[in-house]
């Protein structure tokens, strides 16, 4: 425990102490200026890493939030004669509000569309800052005087300490957030947005909150930026700077606070690097050597493709040759950023920290902290009374895709406490039916009620909130998370601490409780020993069981199992049957889609058979097996009586 604390917190405190002590010995104003910028860019890059790293999207608008924050702080000082804290609060708030406003439309989008939306926002912001001359002074710029801090005028070192303290606070807040349900949800929604929604976590909600938070940090950094430079110009917040910030985050290492810090160091040092010829040559030479070394190593070990090994060497080689040939490196700055960024993205996609973290974890092996004992199952999954009344009722449900009638007027009644089988040949509409009930599709027509209440349509998230949980035929586990975390993401009602308190680190208690609850569910499905195993390393059978454990974390009234035995070996199927029985004994109603007829016969009391999107039979497993229409659907038309007599 102590060793863990020393190894994780030790370096943080050492670097913080070192940085804080520098002004005591160094009085050079230029060096102090660089250090102040380091703290400001540190905050800025932690904010950018939220979208670029944790959400995995290319965000081109961060520089706009820096600008908006800077102008907000500047205008508060100049126009409203506001104080230090007021101007910083305004900057952060502007980042938060504009970030939230942009996030609502932008985060419904993925990949290129998101990048485009953020790029347009950044350009619009630049236009507005330039053109709203009455407010911002336009291209003339805006000069401000630094207001006193709590009544005291700040010296250069005082301002540095303030920036550093804010940086440390932001660092701690982010660490708390990432260690909480939020951090898990970020990872989960990158692995499977559909499952994140189906588990009631809310992909969209988390993305918007994350983006707004990152933008608020951008705004805060902008406020500090304004109070540092005391002169604002719209062209400072250009596309060039955006590329440099991306370079910082990617080179430092995505999804890492240390990576953001390293990136900030790079961003601060870049101008010096470009103006000093010798330094540039040394740096580019080192880059070439590193690229050549890791490229050869990758090729020899066959871990990289030839392109990944060669392209960075070519790019760094160009940088070295260019550095020797070109008169003024400053003229070529964009090309230099491009070459550096290119080499990093291709050759070192995990960044310096991703690389270092691997090496360090080999050097210092850290055991994860011990898990609490599993909670009692009665507490996690209280037994429900099943009264045999109707739970889910579908009335004439239809789902058409253009001319395809995937579900064509299905009526069905699932009784509380039952295991209701749903079978049918391939393409009979089982999966579509499940997708409609669980909210992935909005039905073309028809009615669905759960305990007499109308079930929401077209939203996985809202259906999940109604007490319906499901598993997926094509596995949708959160592959990057451990088995325990997979279940913890989905735990219903376990996380009540509001985000501001989470940032302050107030969520540790409920985190511990959630671990105990999740462990109980893992033990129910026989995965207790694999709690810390990354989900992607589990066997296929265990991954299927993990999906069930995760769905149970929703404490569902209705659990839909979409072909849980598909692809399982016989012993695993037996295990599965046993587990489903145990779940049923806790009063959870289930719909079981299955092709294994023996599993269905063993578990289900009622079976509905679909073919061509319609119900062709319903009854006990034995009745259904003998039903002529079912036999026809599975085996084809029986020979006509006359033909049989002839033979």
């Amino acid at each position, binding site marked *: 425990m102590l060793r863990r604390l020393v190894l994780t917190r030790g370096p943080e405190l050492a670097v913080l102490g070192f940085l804080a002590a520098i002004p005591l010995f160094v009085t050079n104003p230029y060096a102090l200026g660089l250090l102040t910028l380091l703290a400001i860019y540190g905050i800025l890059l932690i904010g950018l890493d939220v979208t670029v790293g944790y959400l*995995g999207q*290319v965000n081109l608008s961060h520089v706009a939030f820096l600008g908006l924050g800077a102008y907000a702080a500047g205008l508060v000082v100049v126009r409203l004669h506001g104080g230090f804290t007021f101007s910083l609060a305004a900057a952060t708030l502007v980042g938060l509000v504009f970030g939230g406003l*942009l996030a*609502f*439309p*932008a985060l*419904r*989008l*993925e*990949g*290129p*569309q998101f*990048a*485009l*939306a953020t*790029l*347009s*926002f950044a*350009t*619009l912001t630049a*236009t507005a800052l*330039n*053109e709203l001359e009455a407010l911002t002074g336009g291209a003339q710029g805006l000069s401000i005087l630094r207001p006193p801090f709590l009544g005291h005028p700040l010296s250069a070192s005082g301002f540095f300490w303030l920036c550093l303290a804010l940086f440390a606070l932001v660092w701690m807040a982010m660490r708390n957030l990432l260690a909480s349900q939020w951090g898990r949800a970020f990872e989960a929604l990158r692995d499977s947005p*559909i499952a994140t929604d189906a588990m009631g976590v809310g992909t969209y909600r988390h993305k918007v909150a994350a983006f707004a938070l990152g933008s608020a940090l951008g705004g805060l950094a902008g406020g500090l930026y304004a109070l540092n430079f005391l002169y604002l110009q719209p062209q400072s917040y250009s*596309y060039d700077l955006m*590329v440099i910030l*991306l370079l910082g985050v*990617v080179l430092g290492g995505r999804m890492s606070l240390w990576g953001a810090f390293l990136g900030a160091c790079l961003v601060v040092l870049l101008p010096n690097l470009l103006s000093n010829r010798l330094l540039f040559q040394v740096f580019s030479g080192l880059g070439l050597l590193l690229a050549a070394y890791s490229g050869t190593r990758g090729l020899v070990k066959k871990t990289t*493709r030839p*392109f*990944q090994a060669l*392209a960075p060497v070519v790019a760094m080689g160009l940088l070295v040759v260019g550095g020797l040939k070109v008169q003024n490196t400053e*003229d*070529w*700055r*964009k*090309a*230099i*950023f*491009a*070459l550096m*960024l*290119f080499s990093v*993205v*291709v050759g070192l*996609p995990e960044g310096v920290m991703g690389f270092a973290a691997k090496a360090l974890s080999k050097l210092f092996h850290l055991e994860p902290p011990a898990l609490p004992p599993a909670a009692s199952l009665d507490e996690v999954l209280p037994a429900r009374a099943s009264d045999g009344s109707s739970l889910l009722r579908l009335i004439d449900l239809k789902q058409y*895709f253009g001319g395809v009638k995937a579900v064509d007027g299905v009526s069905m009644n699932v009784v509380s406490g039952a295991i209701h089988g749903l079978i049918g040949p391939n393409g009979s509409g089982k*999966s579509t039916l499940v*997708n409609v009930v669980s909210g*992935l599709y909005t039905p073309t027509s028809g009615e669905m009620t759960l305990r007499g209440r109308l079930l929401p349509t077209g939203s996985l998230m809202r259906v999940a909130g109604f007490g319906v949980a499901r598993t*997926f*035929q*094509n596995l*949708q586990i959160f592959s990057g998370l451990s088995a325990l975390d997979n279940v913890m993401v989905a735990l219903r009602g376990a996380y009540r601490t509001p985000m501001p308190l989470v940032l302050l680190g107030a969520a540790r208690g409920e985190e511990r409780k959630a671990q105990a609850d999740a462990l109980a569910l893992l033990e129910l499905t026989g995965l207790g020993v694999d709690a810390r195993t990354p989900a992607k390393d589990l066997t296929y059978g265990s991954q299927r069981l993990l999906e069930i454990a995760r769905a149970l974390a929703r404490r569902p009234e209705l659990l839909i199992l979409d072909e849980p035995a598909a692809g399982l070996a016989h012993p695993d199927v037996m295990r599965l049957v046993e587990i489903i029985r145990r779940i049923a004994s806790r009063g959870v109603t289930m719909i079981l889609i299955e092709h294994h007829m023996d599993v269905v016969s063993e578990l289900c009391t009622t079976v509905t058979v679909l073919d061509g999107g319609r119900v062709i039979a319903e009854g006990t497993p034995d009745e259904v097996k003998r039903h002529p229409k079912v036999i026809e659907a599975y085996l084809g038309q029986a020979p006509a009586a006359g033909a049989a007599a002839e033979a």
Partner: protein
Amino acid sequence: MTAAVLAQVVVSGALMGLVYALVAYGFQLTYATSKSINFGQGELVMVSAFVSLSLVNAGLPYGLVLPAGMLFGALLGLFVERAGVRLALEQKSEGWILMTIILGLFFLSAAENVWGRDDRPFPTPISSDPIHLLGVDITPLEISVAVGVFAVMGLVELFKRVTLLGKAFEAVSADRDAAELMGISARRAIMLSYGLSGMVAALAGILVSPITTVGPTMSSTLILKAFSVAVVAGLDSGFGVVVVGILLGALEAVTSLTVGSGWREAPGLVLLILALAVRPTGVFGKATIRKV
């Protein structure tokens, strides 16, 4: 402001809009085969225009500059595919967004240093003496833009429908996996689409440069508008980009006249964000079905 002035502005703007449509069409070509677009397409337009200008200055006749410039654009497009897109597509990641941004930045910097940061005139044999037509003035130069845009889009569409190679291209666009199972190389189709896209970008550069002049900044102004057009129209509708391109060009010219030239980019950007918010597949695009 009289109606005549307004009509004049709308017509000139609409003709510029056709150039945006052509650049946007270049996005559609690569999006169809690979679901990726070149974020550095504007730089492709600009660099190809500069190369063509150098060819003109070297004394090459205009009739040869056009194909030479387009060939250069196609080669540049192939380079972007190889250096920036292929690896990311193989890894099934969206890394190509950042990679094409990076390549664009490199081209921009190279152009700034090779040809300078100033805007330069692009000589052309086509006359720019206005012809009076139905109350507005149109120059033969502007007409040549319209003719060029429609000609190349028509030819590419014809190529896709008539030739075997074009049908392979369409097959990969429709269903990549199925096409591969039928023995069509998706990689080659993607290369072809990037080559065509680069060619189209080069043509856009050569057509627009005599009107707007050539300069490093033309890339960023053009690409944002082309993005707006492509997104508002939808990334799979060739007809859509022409309609939206014309409308956006006209809207932009009117904004520039009434609100101020500094704001001329604003309507496109606002439209883009709105379109993404309300209808991410575009006005003319097809909705897709999510599957699990």
